């Protein structure tokens, strides 16, 4: 892959992240309550000297632009995101750290499952267009696409947790439980993970299947597929070596573009199942008007999406030789 392609992609991502920090900065200045609340709220018995030192470090004595922004940027990059208004004495960074892993697990596994299943289903549907799998699959995908994730979650909760009692109804682990060994703990974790994971997975599968399907249908009408047929190659070979590699390209792009929207869904799924991740944190912070934490979540999620997009760009560069020059 050419250096300039990589450089361009990295540069673009970096610039977007800078814009994100800028938005955060604007919000930081605009939100109710002076900035000092943000940087010192949790600390008890603040002396005027400490206050002044903090003001210096965050540049609050300097003109707003560019000095304050640069200071803000510096603070953000070094991980100093201020203090939570709500959590006693905890920095935003600490609060985020506590809640990040459950989200990574839920969301990461959900994406993985959805990508594998969705692409497979979509490819098969497109290949056997008009067949039973296609018609049924397409209908279900469209309906899933119109359904908010949390609604799906509530329905699953009702049927499988309340109704059939196969799974617990909330949380990540049973409250107050003690475990004889790691396997018991893991088992409890998995049974709690099952429904939220199914919700995220189902929500995503529909989108990915639809995109992959139309991508395959488009690819199958290209001249090089006709040529491959003309060569007498088997249908399986044509699908694997000619159709799929080309159909993946727009699919990867669309998966990346979608990431921003999926975040909304992931947040609400966590709320439905009381999954202790960034999503529930965001809603708690919202209810309590804990702006520093909210901004921290915004920063973290936005940067993650930008990085994920960058990753998708790199994958795309591997798959499509035309962009590498």
């Amino acid at each position, binding site marked *: 892959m050419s250096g300039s392609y990589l450089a361009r992609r990295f540069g673009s991502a970096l610039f977007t992240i800078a814009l994100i920090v800028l938005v955060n900065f604007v919000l930081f200045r605009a939100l109710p309550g002076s900035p000092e609340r943000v940087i010192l709220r949790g600390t008890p018995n603040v002396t005027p000297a400490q206050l002044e030192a903090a003001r210096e470090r965050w540049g609050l004595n300097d003109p707003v632009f560019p000095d304050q922004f640069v200071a803000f940027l510096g603070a953000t990059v070094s991980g100093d995101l201020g203090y939570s208004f709500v959590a006693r004495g905890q920095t935003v960074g600490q609060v985020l750290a506590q809640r990040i892993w459950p989200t990574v697990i839920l969301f990461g596994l959900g994406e993985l499952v959805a990508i594998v299943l969705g692409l497979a289903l979509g490819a098969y549907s497109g290949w056997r267009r008009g067949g039973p799998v296609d018609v049924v699959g397409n209908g279900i995908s469209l309906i899933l696409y119109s359904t908010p994730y949390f609604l799906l979650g509530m329905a699953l*909760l009702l049927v499988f947790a309340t109704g059939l009692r196969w799974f617990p109804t909330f949380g990540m682990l049973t409250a107050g439980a003690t475990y004889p060994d790691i396997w018991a703990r893991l088992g409890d974790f998995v049974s709690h993970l099952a429904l939220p994971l199914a919700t995220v997975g189902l929500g995503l599968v529909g989108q990915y299947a639809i995109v992959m399907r139309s991508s395959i249908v488009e690819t199958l009408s290209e001249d090089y597929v006709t040529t491959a047929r003309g060569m007498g190659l088997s249908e399986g070979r044509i699908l694997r070596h000619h159709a799929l590699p080309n159909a993946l390209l727009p699919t990867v792009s669309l998966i990346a573009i979608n990431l921003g929207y999926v975040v909304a*869904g992931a947040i609400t799924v966590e709320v439905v199942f009381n999954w202790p991740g960034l999503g529930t944190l965001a809603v708690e912070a919202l209810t309590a008007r804990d702006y520093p934490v*909210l901004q921290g979540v915004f920063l973290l999620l936005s940067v993650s999406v930008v990085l994920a997009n960058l990753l998708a760009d790199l994958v795309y560069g591997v798959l499509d030789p035309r962009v590498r020059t």
Partner: protein
Amino acid sequence: MTAAGASWSPPIPAGRRVGRFDLLVRLVRRPEGAFGVLILAIFAALALAPDFFVGPLQTAVTAHGTRLSPPSAAFPLGTDELRRDMLNLTVHGARVSMAIGLLATLVTVFIGAVVGIVSGFVGGRVDAVLMRITDFFLVIPTFVLALILTPIIRDLVGSGSTEILGIRMTLIVIVIVIGITSWSSSARIIRSQTLSLKERAFVDRARVIGAGSGHIMRRHILPNVINLIVANSVLVFAGAVLTETTLSFVGLGDPFQPSWGQLLEAARSVGAPGLGAWWYFVPPGVCIVLVVFAFTLVGGALDDLLNPKRRGRA
């Protein structure tokens, strides 16, 4: 890109309506178009005159059911924890959800169209800067941004009980926030169309006779992107309803003017799924799915009709 003068078709004069009715007729001829339009007509009727169908919105004071009771003869969709009739709430929810969706769509499409047309037509640095901003909004998770913006703007605006078009200010704030965060994909689509229109001969013709940029944009470009904007608006509407629902679900709705999303939030905080009270969240949920599904069908069909290249494909 067509070579200058390679394919000329007369531009639609401003204000000509025949093109749009013809589109509607062709839309309804398709089964998915007919189904979608039917669903939307039903919900539009409910949204425009909810009082006619179920009487005024019930409050905790005027409620007369029993708490969280399943569907019965008197209450076909059961009751909520404030003893209110779910059917009443759901139908009134239609008005709130659809109204917010409509207003948010207007804001979104307006911003998107202005940015798209200006960016595509003027080109150069203006285009580069506007597109950078647009791409930014496309990448970031705008939902989280909305989460932050809404309480800030609400606190700025104050919490009186003024209403615009019968919608309380708290919800108008949501309209604005949705508009601010959702305009970018419309902008991109409209910019594409503007770019290809810019190359057409009739634009050069207007320039030659001395028409200014603003004039050209308004009288020549705009009428020709209207069809595209209409098709795009339908899909934007679906997105706006979903976004409003989600924002309400996380607590930004208004309990005094419950939209479907707000009803779902209430259902969750009461623990309806855990209690087995399916009638609390299924009716508003089904309504949401139906409306979004219908809009998506219609939007897709319109897109097919306006995009002859894609006809006969999937």
